[in-house]
């Protein structure tokens, strides 16, 4: 039986109490709303992209500690990164969230262990996997960011369409 401390790591509670990158960005930043109909969590992602880099990101919304801390942790992790790096982080995080509970405790060399290493602070959210109903909370911000990236107009893209 997983304990609460595996879900509510101190770093999660910290990001919940003091969320990073709260606020809005004016256009041309992309604005996308995410919504979890089951629990009513709402997140709005504002993403500013310049020269293939996610130069700024801000978030508003409300929801549980998991959805809010996940969005805060996410913003800290992706801000200032190239779009390629951002997409990589998203993929790694979502891979972690689909890990089976048992695999979480696998030792060094496992793919979960690799994810955790790559994710740094974000790995604090790994415990969510043991609480399957909360996975949707943890991934809400990430799905919304993915959608925002998809909506970014391909401007200054020199690599062709």
């Amino acid at each position, binding site marked *: 039986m997983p304990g*609460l401390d595996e879900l509510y790591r101190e770093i999660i*509670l910290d990001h919940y109490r003091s969320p990073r990158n709260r606020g809005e960005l004016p256009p041309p930043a992309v604005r996308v709303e995410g919504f979890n109909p089951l*629990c*009513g*969590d*709402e997140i709005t992602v504002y993403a500013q992209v310049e020269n293939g880099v996610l130069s700024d990101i801000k978030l508003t919304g409300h929801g549980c*500690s998991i959805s*809010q801390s996940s969005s805060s942790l996410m913003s800290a992790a992706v801000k200032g990164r190239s779009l390629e790096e951002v997409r990589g982080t998203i993929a790694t995080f979502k891979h972690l969230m689909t890990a089976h509970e048992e695999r979480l405790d696998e030792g060094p060399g496992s793919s979960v262990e690799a994810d955790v290493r790559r994710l740094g602070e974000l790995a604090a959210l790994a415990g969510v996997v043991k609480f399957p109903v909360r996975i949707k*909370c943890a991934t809400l911000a990430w799905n919304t960011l993915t959608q925002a990236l998809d909506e970014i107009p391909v401007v200054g893209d020199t690599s062709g369409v």
Partner: protein
Amino acid sequence: MTAFDPRGVRTDVPLTRRVINGRTITYLDSAASSLTPRTVIEAMDRYYENYHANVHRGVYQTANEATTIYEGARDAVARFLNAPGGSSEIVFTKNTTESFNLIARSWGATFLNPGDVVLLTEMEHHANIVPWFQLRDTQGIEVRFIPVGDDFRLDLSEIDELMRDVKLVSVTGMSNVLGTIAPVRQLADVAHRHGALIAVDGAQSVAHSSTDLVGLDIDFLAFSAHKMLGPTGLGVLWAREAILDAMPPFMGGGGMILDVSLDGFTPAKGPSRFEAGTPPIAQTAGFSAALKYLEGLGMANVAAYEKELTGDALTRLALEFEGRVRIIGPGDTLERGGVISLDVEGVHPHDVAQVLDQFGVCVRPGHHCAKPLMKRFGLAATARASFGPYSLVEDTDVLLEALGHAVKMFG
């Protein structure tokens, strides 16, 4: 203490012995669905082991017995409600939600015209909102809402104005979020005075208080077996016989027809007109047992007991948390049932429920299918604790202990 023995009820319900995270379950989600006494489970077992057959049209013995069980449940429901016209006013559906869709699609689509108004309240469950919005889209009716005041009760101060062009008042007997009990008889009088009919969502009120249809003077009533110790998959629609008789069928199929040819069909008379297809037969066996069990307890006793539990919990919540836990609903037990919605300062309802789960405490976070009400109070969700006849004051003890932990953890 009231006349019945809640500890005995507890013993009769197997799920109350479940161990969760090392602690015996503290089930406080009866408003979502009630736990099931052994006698109800056994009635269904006996049905499947000895009597199961499709109902109606059967000549052989088990088909007869199954039909007797099915129709016997109809009689039992009629008695339980004191239905003025008896069992011919009882229609079996899947749940409260189907009952409301039936009212909207059969009665509503037949008798409502563009410009007619259906008057709901801001504290309705989606089951009594969405079907009317759907009807609005096809029928051009207007859907209007009686406001809920800051005291969490219906604000009837402008009721006569609100009644303009209203053909149906459709209200919940008891809010599944606030616990507020609506003044149904008074609303029935208002409705009838304005030449309108009145439907009542009894999903909570029928499950937690005694219902006397003769006294209530309403026109439709909908509720679900699974909220009153019965099985999932069975609901009831009651309507006055004269109204039911005038309603066309809802769903089409076997059992609801008098005749079918290649050219068309003639619907049957009576409740079977609304019961297309093989009904939830085993579920009616379980529901009869549930009604008998509840009648044994006495619904007035159940209501009084749950009021006691609620009063105690409200008092202790106020004392122990000194404002950090806000009750979304009346703070007293006047015209109020055993549903307690909590807004815990700084702790999201989802997290409240998660922490409580660690203590084996089952409360439900969310909008409780009452989003308009949530919006009315500027909330996305609450954490809701609700009582049943098997609840004990110890449940409140564990609730408070676990809540204390949640408050500390996020403090």
